[in-house]
């Protein structure tokens, strides 16, 4: 890698691109644009944490939100199920890590590709009344080369199965060693005539691109990787971007507006810097990669006389079609130690139910994998397991069964579809503000009845699998009354060819503003089957390449 020269661009002079957000998409975008020779300012509201900053700190991360931030840190959000309700303040509704690398720093790295059906499902299945269920403006084959880029440049471990979508190149790393929880899943699945297969994960099973293989510490989900084996944008594409000398990373920058001129073009991004001083970075083009809740909020906050309903919102679709993905979880106890708290969250997946039979009478589909029910975290398990199993919750009996439960438990989780609805959305809260005075993100969300039916179906299927696996004391959960928060933030600036029903076009350019691009979870037209980040990164590789080409042709 070339010796890095870290540039410092003057804010009042135009750089080629400002990228807002350094997460899964923003990191890829900064890398693609800067390696193509463009000058890039990458703005991030959080700090630049490194491997040495990460600890197995359950109290700090899970209970005090040190990585994700919430109301206690000055970032309240509000929630309501229906638009007729008044939203109430919550500690957190839309969850994401605030740091360089964004949520790719603390994710599980389940990197399922979408399948060809995901891009054309609305026309194959037919429309679903009352929803905005639509085809994508691109297909799986358009995205396949970029999925392969993610595999190799970001780093994915896995094994191509006969039923997986076609790929042009194999995985760079072999799959992770199977865990006991997934042995139980695999044996049950095979006994039921299903086809379990190694789960693809953005965690290295062996050294790749100068990073080491996983040490199987078990603290992936919700934690930063202490050895850089997890393939976040923090340790993969962002260092490449910075090494070009074309990319300036500015941390602790809180963006609150994109300014436009009379010609309807974006001119600058306005933010408060680390010292709280307001700055405005001028740029030829602006790329928002702030996530599916922050990107629409920023657009809605950037209203002007020309854009009275928010920037790039002539369709009225900014913030709408929020999709969380559904889930179900079932846990059971086994006779021998499973020790599912060790190693990566999931090593096997069952994709036989990717598309549920339409004759069931509802739309949906998903995947199933094996896990530890508390993500391996001891405190979370001690707090929740006993009440769930119905065993004593305190006293010597509580203490006596705890160790047995913690080591002998396995969970089978379902990861499922969400339908896009106009009534599920991100808006600006009319009263609650964050510590900077920005309107709080207001989430309005109620799962579609088909989404709840899908969760129920996966819940019941995994109960059956637990029984076949030989578990005792089987208990589980799905959100039968609808979810009230999530970390998957999808669909809120959807892609499409029609400017009346979508926010960005097939190259992630805003229909309304020629030099404004949005690329992150907000771009997704449909939700996939519960593992969106692989697709978010692939979209960013693709958009980055197309935007760079357009810039060279002076078409920005």
């Amino acid at each position: 890698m070339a010796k890095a020269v870290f540039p410092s661009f003057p804010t009042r002079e135009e750089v080629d691109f400002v990228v807002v957000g350094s997460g899964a998409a923003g990191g890829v975008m900064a890398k693609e644009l800067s390696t193509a020779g463009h000058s890039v300012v990458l703005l991030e509201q959080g700090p630049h944490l490194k491997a040495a900053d990460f600890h197995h700190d359950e109290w700090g991360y899970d209970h005090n939100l040190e990585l994700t931030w919430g109301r206690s840190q000055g970032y309240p959000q509000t929630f309501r199920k229906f638009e007729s309700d008044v939203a109430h303040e919550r500690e957190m509704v839309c969850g994401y890590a605030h740091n360089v690398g964004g949520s790719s720093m603390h994710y599980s790295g389940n990197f399922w590709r979408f399948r060809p059906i995901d891009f054309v499902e609305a026309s194959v299945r037919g429309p679903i009344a009352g929803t905005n269920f639509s085809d994508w403006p691109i297909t799986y084959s358009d995205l396949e080369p970029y999925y392969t880029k993610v595999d190799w440049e970001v780093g994915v471990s896995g094994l191509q199965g006969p039923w997986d979508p076609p790929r042009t190149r194999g995985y760079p790393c072999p799959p992770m060693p199977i865990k006991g929880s997934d042995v139980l899943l695999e044996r049950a699945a095979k006994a039921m005539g299903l086809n379990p297969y190694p789960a693809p994960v953005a965690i290295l099973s062996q050294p790749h691109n100068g990073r080491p293989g996983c040490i199987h510490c078990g603290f992936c989900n919700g934690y930063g990787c202490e050895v850089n084996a997890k393939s976040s944008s923090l340790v993969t594409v962002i260092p490449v971007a910075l090494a070009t000398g074309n990319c300036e990373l500015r941390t602790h920058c809180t963006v609150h507006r994109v300014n436009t001129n009379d010609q309807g073009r974006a001119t600058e991004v306005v933010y408060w810097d680390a010292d709280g001083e307001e700055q405005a970075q001028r740029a030829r083009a602006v790329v928002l990669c702030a996530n599916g809740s922050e990107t629409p909020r920023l657009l809605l906050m950037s209203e002007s006389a020309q854009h009275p309903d928010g920037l790039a919102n002539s369709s009225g679709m900014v913030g709408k079609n929020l999709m969380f993905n559904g889930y179900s979880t079932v846990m059971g106890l086994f006779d021998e130690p499973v020790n599912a708290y060790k190693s990566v969250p999931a090593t096997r997946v069952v994709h036989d139910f990717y598309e549920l039979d339409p004759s069931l009478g509802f739309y949906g589909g998903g995947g199933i994998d094996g896990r530890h029910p508390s993500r391996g975290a001891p405190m979370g398990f001690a707090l929740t397991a006993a009440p769930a199993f119905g065993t004593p919750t305190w006293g010597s009996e509580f203490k006596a069964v705890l160790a047995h439960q913690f080591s002998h438990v396995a969970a089978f989780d379902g990861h499922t579809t969400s339908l896009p609805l106009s009534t599920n959305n991100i808006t600006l809260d009319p009263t609650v503000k964050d510590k900077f005075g920005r309107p709080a993100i207001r989430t309005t969300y109620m799962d579609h009845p088909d989404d709840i039916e899908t969760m129920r179906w996966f819940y019941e299927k995994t109960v059956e699998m637990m029984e076949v696996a030989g578990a005792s004391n089987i208990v589980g959960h799905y959100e039968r009354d609808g979810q009230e928060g999530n970390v998957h933030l999808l669909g809120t600036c959807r892609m499409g060819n029609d400017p009346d029903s979508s926010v960005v076009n097939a190259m992630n350019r805003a229909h309304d503003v020629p030099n404004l691009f949005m690329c992150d979870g907000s771009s997704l037209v449909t939700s996939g089957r519960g593992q969106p980040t692989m697709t978010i990164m692939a979209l960013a590789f693709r958009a980055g390449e197309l935007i760079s080409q357009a810039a060279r042709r002076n078409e920005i």
Partner: protein
Amino acid sequence: MSVSRSRRSFLVDSATLAKGSFLALSLPVILSACQRSQQALEQGAGFRVFEGDEAADLTAIAARIIPTDDTPGATEAGVIYFLDTIFAEARRASQLALLREGLAALRGQLTTRGRNIHELTEAQQDQLLRDNEQTPFFATMRYLTIAGTFSLPRYGGNRDKVGYQLIGYEDRGAWSAPYGFYDADYAERGE
């Protein structure tokens, strides 16, 4: 009946873990001062928040939630030092007031005035707590006793990692397969 701590629910669950606890809605507060508790322990300093009888009563309650028997419990984990540290945070003043109110209410139920909870027999303490199992005070004490037992030792509790020992969590930080019985068996059978 929910133990959903899976990927997408954990953030929500953080707020609902202490259901019924008066800390539930305000608990996630950065405990920047927590590192100080470890220093306090090492220096053998006294409590910063709690007075003698208060500390002894809270210790006694924590010890009934995670008792000391043939293995260490909340007392050995140093849960009281964890509590003393987090309630020393200025922003927790109102929570501390609620905790004291809850403790006073519990003491008020004792038949002999002026007696302290820690002076009761273990059986009497258990009965008192069973009678108060549905109160926010008890939910809070259960939550914080578990938090103090299983958090990193730098927060003052989980001394000598006794919490990890009692739940069977091997604190090695790195493993290689096989991790448990079933994957070892799988390898042996060549599945």
